[in-house]
């Protein structure tokens, strides 16, 4: 998919919002509606849509191109002093991105990315990273967490919510991150005892606010709640 071709890139402003692929789009047609249409593009798109309605080949081609795009890493970055930079509809970044090479990266949102142990190399080179979001990353596991210690000086916020491979053993190596102020460890299915783990992590990182499982979850209900349950009849 080349940058030239149809229509201009949607401006080089720094706060473009991408269409969110996995939620609001239903097939190709939903996708084309989600992209904020610029004037010149609208006619071309409705023609393509018409063709896609009529011919299976065109529809299959659009689906294939969509799948190819979705497979590219969908990283959003925020630079110091600026707003979030996200890729546009085609997965491209605005052209003046290259001028930001010297500006340190402050926050990285890699949620849902298929980043793995080797992929973290690129993140660890960011010496001034303050905020790292790794929510729902399917390949981030305990080994990856043990690699995060070079970011100890700058990292203040870390989110690991929903990562299926992280267990309490990996959380133990977060104690290197002494500047951490916000840590999100909610919804980790591989952690065997979420309530106890939350308490232990809070003890390990005293100056950090740990968001996670409610520690009371998993405890048996008290006597007054129990009597309430038995008192109310089962609704018919």
């Amino acid at each position, binding site marked *: 998919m080349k940058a030239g071709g149809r229509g201009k890139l949607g401006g080089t402003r720094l706060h473009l919002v991408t269409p969110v692929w996995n939620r609001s789009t239903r097939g190709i047609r939903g996708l084309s509606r989600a992209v904020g249409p610029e004037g010149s593009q609208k006619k071309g798109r409705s023609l393509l849509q018409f063709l896609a309605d009529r011919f299976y080949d065109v529809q299959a081609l659009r689906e294939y191109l969509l799948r190819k795009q979705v497979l590219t890493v969908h990283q959003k970055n925020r630079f110091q002093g600026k707003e979030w930079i996200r890729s546009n509809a085609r997965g491209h970044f605005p052209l003046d991105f290259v001028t930001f090479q010297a500006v340190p990266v402050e926050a990285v949102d890699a949620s849902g990315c298929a980043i793995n*142990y080797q992929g973290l190399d690129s993140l660890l080179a960011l010496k001034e990273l303050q905020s790292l979001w790794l929510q729902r990353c399917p390949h981030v596991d*305990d*080994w990856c*967490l*043990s*690699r995060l*210690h070079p970011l100890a000086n700058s990292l203040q916020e870390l989110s690991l919510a929903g990562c299926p491979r992280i267990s*309490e*053993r*990996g*959380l*133990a*190596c977060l*104690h*290197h991150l002494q500047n951490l102020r916000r840590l999100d460890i909610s919804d980790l299915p591989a952690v*065997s*005892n979420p309530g*106890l*783990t939350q308490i*232990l*992590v809070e*003890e*390990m990182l005293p100056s950090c606010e740990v968001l996670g499982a409610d520690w009371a979850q998993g405890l048996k209900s008290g006597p007054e709640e129990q009597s309430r349950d038995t008192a109310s009849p089962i609704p018919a």
Partner: protein
Amino acid sequence: AHDGKTVGRLGEGNQNGKLSEIKKKIQSVLPGGAWNPLYNTSHLPPEHSDVVIVGGGVIGLSVAYWLKRLEKRRGAIRVLVVERDHTYSRASTVLSVGGIRQQFSVPENIQLSLFSIEFLRNINEYLAVVDDPPLDIQFNPAGYLLLASEKGAAVMESNVKVQRQEGAKVCLMSPEQLRNKFPWINTEGVALASYGMEHEGWFDPWCLLQGLRRKVQSMGVLFCHGEVTRFVSSSSHAVTTSGEEVTLKRIHEVHVKRDHSLEYQPVECAIVINAAGAWSGQIAELAGVGKGPPGTLQGTRLPVELRKRYVYFWHCPQGPGLETPFVIDASGAYFRREGLGNNYLGGCSPTEEEEPDPGNLEVDHDFFQNKVWPPLAQRVPAFETLKVRNAWAGYYDYNTFDQNGVVGPHPLVVNMYFATGFSGHGLQQAPAVGRAVAEMVLDGHFQTINLSPFLFNRFYLGVKVQEHNII
């Protein structure tokens, strides 16, 4: 009709005996008799095997895995693993504390450990078996913390330099930094500490063993539950360049005896791998290693002995928390966290004079009271109140020469390869050692990691590769 009786009247007594013998034999061959040449031998190992690995622990299975993985053509090598104890009740592998570290003083040990941690990280790519669930070795990446007193500080610094050169991620900490990081440590007497940041921790050795077992079985390695009782070898004489005569031996057969039975099977083999762990010395003696005048190469025995080590499991409610690394004190006592419930595992290696009798695996609880608890309680004041819940003992395959492994062929018994003598750090080096031995067998030299300092020759030449950081 002519029968024995008629002939007997005519012939001599001798002939009578022989003929009745022949008659008995004929009777036994006929149906209903006792002779049965085609009996079921499926419980016995095969009669021929290219490689026989004596010992089915993590080292033996690792060698089997890499032999099958590096063979040039699929199915080229037939491997047989002989293990005497199929429940692994006395095997060092499963009784181990399960730690893996790169903080050694010998560069080869560091390389072996780095290779092994990479193997463990990608264990499901190496040991994947179709339709079987993936392995979870429960790795805790908490790192090792080695403490040194004034005396050992200089050695620790030079060791850390070597470790960093090889690629280990280790940092040095002063007592003050140590207090900031781990407030539960009492730094009195500690001059320097080295802390492994990555690639160090502990894991579940049983899972690794089962994963290897499952994988090598799927690759076609045969297992035999039996004991090696005899090696049948042939000798040939050769003359060295200096005119000395040496006797080269070649093992042709391995007699494998079944448990609780007198049945044995002579397995014809080309190569024997001694991975019998703590009992490697006995296997080497069977093969004739060390039978000769002392001071000669023939008379150099394999210096691997059984040494008993205790591991204690205790609970301490106010003990150190989730961030606790594997702590090794300057006195040699060590401990690590186990689970989330304030439980800890630990122990200490006894001095030479206090070595317990390795005849059995009974635990000496006084040893904990007198030798393990005082240094640990001094180092971690919270351990003054603790309660021992459990304890067990296991064997080290202790190399009395220099406490490092023996890898590679024997110079005189030309087809016996050693993979033993790791003195407590065998589990963490097993994947790499397996690869090294397989490369030696298949290619004749080491390729990924050069383990020539660990060959058998050093016992005769007196060249020690002393490992200082053993626990």
